[in-house]
């Protein structure tokens, strides 16, 4: 299957939250006890959690005195920091673009949460049998040729789904066709080495609360800089220390120093 991607066109979003409901429905997620003003205005709940893999964020843009919407969901990075950090391989980047969690392999170390620049993976701290929760890209639906649940239900086509190349060129074309309507940036094209979810917006992304100022290089590269030397370093150290220890022991034997440890 070709690599898939999603466009989240925030200028088309009307804040109906159908995506949140569809996501809950498909992934069998529970309900939350919520507060009407849990966060800024009508945003509800305040953040992603074990019952919400996606969330429409509500911000008010004072200059225009109107809502601007954003959406939280896993960005499904091209080189995901979470999957690179996971010590058990519970998180994997799939060929269809999804970053998938194999729940039973998770040991709850929460390194993925630490590593994720978008603060997406969530953990149910209240549970005695907790685990990591995050958007699945509806990987199970993709395999049978369906679009992710959120993309399918969006009534205004704010969420669109297709092959990654096609989605990226579509996002760019949309900006080029209506430059006044969009800020000239496809969020997710280059952030941390590219992602499989592209966000478009009418206001600068920091006003939507998105993490801006991310490097364009994949974050795993930072770890990889030292991690890739590990085997070489290990065997060099082993050799060097072994040799030194052997020399020291022979010297001691010749000088008749008793082993004294």
């Amino acid at each position: 299957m070709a690599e898939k991607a999603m466009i989240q066109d925030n200028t088309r979003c009307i804040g109906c939250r159908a995506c949140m409901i569809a996501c809950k429905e498909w992934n069998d997620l529970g309900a939350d006890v919520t507060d009407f003003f849990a966060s800024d205005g009508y945003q509800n709940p305040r953040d992603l959690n074990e019952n919400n893999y996606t969330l429409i964020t509500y911000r008010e843009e004072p200059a225009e005195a109107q809502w601007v919407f954003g959406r939280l969901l896993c960005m499904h990075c091209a080189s995901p920091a979470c999957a690179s950090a996971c010590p058990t391989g519970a998180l994997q980047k799939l060929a269809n673009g999804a970053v998938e969690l194999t729940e039973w392999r998770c040991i709850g170390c929460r390194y993925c949460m630490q590593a994720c620049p978008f603060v997406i993976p969530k953990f149910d701290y209240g549970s005695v049998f907790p685990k990591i929760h995050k958007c699945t890209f509806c990987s199970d639906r993709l395999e049978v040729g369906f679009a992710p649940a959120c993309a399918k239900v969006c009534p205004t086509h704010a969420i669109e789904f297709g092959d990654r190349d096609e989605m990226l060129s579509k996002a760019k074309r949309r900006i080029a066709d209506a430059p006044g309507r969009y800020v000239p940036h496809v969020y997710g094209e280059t952030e941390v080495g590219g992602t499989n979810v592209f966000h478009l917006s009418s206001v600068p992304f920091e006003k939507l609360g998105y993490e801006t100022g991310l490097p364009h290089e994949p974050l795993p590269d930072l770890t990889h800089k030292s991690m890739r030397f590990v085997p070489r370093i290990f065997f060099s150290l082993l050799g060097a220390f072994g040799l030194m220890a052997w020399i020291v022991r022979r010297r001691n034997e010749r000088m008749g120093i008793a082993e004294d440890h």
Partner: protein
Amino acid sequence: MEARRSIFRWKSTLVAIAIIGGTFTLARFAFGIGAIANVNNAYPWGWWVGFGVLSFIAFGGCGFTLALLVEIFGQHRYAPMVRPAITMGLLLYLGYVVILMIELGRPWMGWIIFFSWQPTSALFEVAWCATLYTTVLIIEFGSVAANHYRWRRSARILGMVYLPAVVVGVSLSHLHQSSLGTLLTIVPLKVDSRWWSEVLPATFLTSSYMAGLSLVTIEHVLATHYLRLKPRVDLLGGLARFQIGLIVIFLTLRIGSLVYEGATDAALRFDWLSFLLWTEIIVGFLVPLALFSIPDVRQNKWALFASSCLLAGGILLTRLNTAVFGMRVKHWESYQPAIGEYATTFGVLATLVLIYGFAVRRLPIHREEPLDEDPAPGIAPHAAKAAV
């Protein structure tokens, strides 16, 4: 008598701390992590990792540092320090495993890490190396015990694997001590610029040597004091010389990375984190550096003790600063360690001190000569026994 009463007071305090920690641990397994800890979705690690993992392993580095010094660099005169170092190292690594079991969300799945292949993950490497190294520590410790109790067959087998085990153990330690730093290189946006740098692996490795030597010094002064043994100030002075070199290397890396990463602006800012930074650098490293450089200090066991405590504090602070205080995530949630997090870690620490206190009196860990002075009645049998 005075010493004995003070030991008793210490012991009861430690037992109390351990019991409180145990209670919180039970609560964690009964009601989940959220019941006792403040770790949250934006700050998933917090105190448990900063203190229980990063710092415990740093100070557990005493085992490999002394093994490196004695067995590999052939500095044989430090041999009397090896046994305490290995015992403390083993205990601290076991303590780290216990804290990890509390801290992991799904500890019952922990074994799966050994049936995975994730060479890109620093945590994978730390887990593997730390486990293998704990095995090495058990072999080293077992070899000492077998020799002492004259378990002939075990002693022969362990004697054969001892040196290879030391070599493997020291190599493994270099890997996972530095990988603890690598753990945090993937989050340049979350760790404050005053602590994040690409040379974190190197600073963490250097500080683990220093932590090991400081802990050995602190232990030696306290143990010889309470067991009424002759302190080997000459050896402590020798370790202090190594400390000078290590502190200089560490500070060069530290200051160099601050300049290289462009963090001097932040370092000269007047805020809480800069206060922590300067406390760390001045009180934790520069003052010990100055003290260790004075010959009079290197011949005075309490001066060495105090300097080592400051240095140990500096290392602890730099680790906590990197992983706890300097961690700033742009998110609505914030983090302060909860009582439960302090209680569990200090509970484990108190238990370790108690076990070590017990071990040091029952096992032939210290073999220095007893003090010449006439020992107070009631303590003499103890000290004499331990000194054998």
